[in-house]
């Protein structure tokens, strides 16, 4: 491990592991599942407990892993887990508890095709689960969608920063393509892990033991509140936090939207494919732009609303039956047509298919 920036050729999953160590992660707790097992394999191979002191544990289940994250996060530690779609479903109870107890943590979902055991091929069909809640109750996750191996590394640090800024779980919502493909990546320099003194200062709520010397009440990490009047206040506080996240943390990337007649909205690996489709369409004289949300929650609805005032239509492309398209439609609010093209069950759309969808639905 180098204490400086480093350029490597690696898989997206490996980049997650490397970046986690380098951004000062205290603990990783996971359970093997394809197509993301390289994350834990890489960590176990590097043995960061010998260098940074980071704990890496293979848990007995995804359920145990997310509850280990709860325990670690409750101590103010920078902890994370990773899994793929069926495993993320198993974690939902724990994620709801973590969101309710306002604990910071990072969860990585390298999505595969579902429903059920589905397939190990890539998919984006966990969009609803990720951005609308997933588990029980009213809560939101900060959802970051990487579109390259470089972004797998970059968003890791950002996810921890946002998680601690808002005391909220952050989800890196990647797909099997990004997890498995190899690209050049610039890894960040090693950041030191927080010391216990720093944690006590940064996270006065953390359960590190009630000091007899300093006068503070006991710290309790819980999501239980039997009084509905109080529970409503807790919920209102959470909603206020989510509104603040929506106000301040929207991230997206736009290409060629300035003069576009049509805008493709796509995230993750599908945004890469759509980028190629955009170039092909422009060669045919169709003015196409690309809007790539980097945060899926908060969703760039204001930007879509702005574009809807002057473009002729939107095409949302996803590896799902059409999930993000609902949020695009809500933002466009009927001003212009919003069409959808998607592939299902582990199939990846080709740029040709996207151009064909665009021309058949809009240009005709």
């Amino acid at each position, binding site marked *: 491990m180098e204490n400086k920036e480093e350029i490597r050729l690696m898989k997206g999953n490996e980049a997650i592991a490397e970046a986690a160590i380098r951004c000062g992660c*205290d*603990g990783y*707790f996971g359970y093997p599942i394809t197509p993301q097992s390289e994350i834990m394999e890489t960590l176990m191979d590097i043995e960061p407990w010998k260098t940074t002191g980071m*704990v890496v*544990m293979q*848990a*007995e*289940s995804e*359920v*145990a*892993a997310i*509850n*280990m*994250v*709860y*325990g*670690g996060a*409750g*101590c103010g*530690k920078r*902890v994370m887990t990773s899994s793929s779609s069926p495993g993320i479903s198993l974690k939902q*109870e*724990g994620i709801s*508890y973590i969101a309710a107890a306002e604990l910071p943590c990072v969860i990585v979902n390298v999505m595969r095709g579902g429903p059920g055991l589905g397939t190990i091929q890539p998919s984006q069909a966990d969009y609803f689960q990720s951005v609308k809640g997933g588990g029980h109750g009213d809560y939101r996750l900060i959802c970051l969608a990487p579109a390259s191996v470089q972004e797998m590394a970059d968003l890791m640090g950002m996810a921890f920063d946002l998680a601690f800024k808002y005391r909220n779980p952050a989800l890196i919502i990647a797909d099997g393509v990004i997890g498995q493909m190899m690209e050049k990546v610039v890894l960040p320099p090693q950041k030191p892990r927080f010391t216990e003194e720093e944690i006590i200062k940064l996270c006065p709520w953390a*359960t*590190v*033991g*009630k*000091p*007899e*010397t300093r006068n503070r009440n*006991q*710290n*309790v*990490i*819980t*999501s*239980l509140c039997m009084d509905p009047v109080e529970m409503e206040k807790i919920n209102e506080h959470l909603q206020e936090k989510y509104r603040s996240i929506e106000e301040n943390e929207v991230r997206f990337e736009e290409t060629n939207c300035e003069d576009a007649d049509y805008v493709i909205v796509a995230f993750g690996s599908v945004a890469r494919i759509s980028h190629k489709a955009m170039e092909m369409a422009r060669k045919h004289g169709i003015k196409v732009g690309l809007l790539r949300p980097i945060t899926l929650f908060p969703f760039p609805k204001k930007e879509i609303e702005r574009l809807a005032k002057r473009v002729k239509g939107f095409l949302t492309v996803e590896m799902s039956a059409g999930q993000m398209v609902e949020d695009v439609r809500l933002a466009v609010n009927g001003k212009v047509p919003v069409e959808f093209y998607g592939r299902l069950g582990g199939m990846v759309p080709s740029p040709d298919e996207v151009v064909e969808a665009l021309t058949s639905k809009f240009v005709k």
Partner: protein
Amino acid sequence: MDIQEIKRPENLIYQKPKSLLDTPMHYCPGCSHGVVHKLIAELVDEMGIQEKIIGVAPVGCAVFAYNYVDIDWQQAAHGRAPAVATAIKRLMPDRYVFTYQGDGDLAAIGTAETIHAANRGENITIIFINNGIYGMTGGQMAPTTLKGMITSTSPHGRQVDINGYPLNITPLLALLDGTCYVTRQAVHTVAAVRKAKKALQKGFENSMLGKGTSVIEIVSTCNSGWKMTPDASNKWMVENMFPVYPLGDLKDNG
């Protein structure tokens, strides 16, 4: 000697532990939880470990343990306390970390977390309150409910052909290489309370010695769930629970 003199601090031979908060307990009169909570608070005081101990509360009656014992607590999802405690201890190895779990939490929904934490030899203390019933939800059948025992979901008595056998999980945990100390205690008499306290202290001490997991089962009463008076509950426990869950050390690696 009048009452005011008796109450003077220098004349006190017993007082409420400092680490026991003043919040009135929600536990039913006669319930074992209150006694075990007091023992934990006494040990926190006597061992001087308030700033070094983190408790993990379960789902069940003891979900509110943090209202009574003045230490830092995390309240875990149902059954997941050993996983939560695992991470706390791994990330802060110089802390005393314990779970406090009922039979439904530890031996039904949390069986996997319990067995795997114990099998990994996590240096935590597992306090297991076994009263053979779900108290918080109103007296349903637990994994440890005795054969023939009436509960709200076994209203004709637990029948083995329908419900299976009572799960005797503590001997199972004693079989695992990861456990260093497995004992079964009760708190129904003064002598039993003293023994249970010694067992709890040993469990806490073990967690700092790196020897593995300590399991302290407390065979307990739930007089509300059992629909008996506190006194009758204690007698019923001695006559019916102890033969199935006999008291004593099951394993002690010294």
